[in-house]
């Protein structure tokens, strides 16, 4: 029997070594700064998570615009799906979410999508019935639109960092980016008509089910 080791057993990482990852080594060999990428992914996951929270509030203030509510709900659920989609990749690369949710929200790469009239979240609340009044649909749609635009820039940057070097992260980021671009198109369409009376069609019709996530949920990674 030959004593020459098999080629796949003589890589930089010794057989049985669980402290290093070939999946990471392969990316670094192609020029990815994995530490920097993980930081970026955590910021991006934080933005998706906080957006999910703030969209929950924003959606409540679209009274009388049931179509807007449904579309906001699709974006809300899909942003949560993005958080779910990217989080396993952070761990796969050896990283972790912050142990304190406050740290997680603080480092989000995109702004908190505050309810208009809430003084960027600093509005004093004397009791839980202290609702903001007179919020217009156009104001809410503008917040939604700018949140989506930040997400597009974020995931585009992650695609740039990983294209042709880290196909797994690239695939996940591209799926998310696809949906963020659709969300922007929805909110351009709605805000343009609501605020300016101008038609700027998104080219889309409603999702089949709320938060369907046609890209982020079409081939489950771990995204229940």
């Amino acid at each position: 029997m030959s004593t020459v080791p098999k080629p796949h057993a003589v890589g930089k990482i010794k057989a049985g070594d669980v402290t290093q990852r070939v999946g990471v080594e392969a990316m670094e060999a192609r020029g990815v700064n994995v530490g920097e990428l993980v930081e970026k992914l955590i910021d991006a996951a934080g933005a998706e998570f906080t957006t999910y929270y703030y969209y929950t509030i924003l959606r409540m203030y679209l009274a009388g615009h049931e179509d807007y509510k449904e579309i906001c709900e699709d974006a809300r659920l899909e942003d949560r799906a993005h958080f779910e989609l990217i989080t396993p990749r952070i761990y796969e690369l050896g990283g972790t979410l912050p142990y304190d949710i406050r740290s997680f929200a603080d480092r989000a790469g995109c702004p908190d999508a505050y309810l208009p009239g809430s003084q960027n979240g600093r509005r004093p609340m004397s009791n839980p019935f202290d609702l903001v009044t007179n919020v217009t649909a156009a104001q809410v749609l503008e917040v939604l639109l700018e949140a989506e635009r930040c997400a597009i820039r974020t995931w585009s940057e992650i695609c740039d960092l990983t294209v042709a070097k880290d196909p797994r992260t690239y695939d996940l980021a591209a799926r998310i980016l696809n949906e963020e671009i659709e969300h922007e198109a929805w909110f351009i369409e709605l805000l343009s008509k609501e605020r300016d009376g101008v038609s700027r069609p998104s080219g889309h019709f409603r999702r089949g089910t709320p938060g369907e996530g046609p890209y982020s949920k079409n081939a489950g990674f771990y995204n229940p």
Partner: protein
Amino acid sequence: MVLELPGQIVTIAVGEHEFILAAARRAGITLPSLCEQGWCTTCAVKVLSGSVDQSASVRYYEEDRRAGFALICTGCPRSDLRLRAGAVEEMRAHRDAHHLPVPRGTRASRIKGLPEK
């Protein structure tokens, strides 16, 4: 406004109610930015002289102003200005030193025109 970039210094006219980043873009200069709402600090610059109105920024602290940082995506000039671009990592260190929140995945060096560190 005078803007110091790696290897060059440019002078740009900025309107009183115009965001500095928008004015730079109008002048054909690509600068780092991401959220464009005054939050992520990707667009951070060092204010070498002058004063910037940050009232349109979602998250900007008095400590940032005192330390001479500005977020030009949502900053308007309030005087003649001299700025140094590409201060995101300096600003992150400043926020960390003051226990203030800041994203951690931002790197100015990714942006065309600014050198790799």
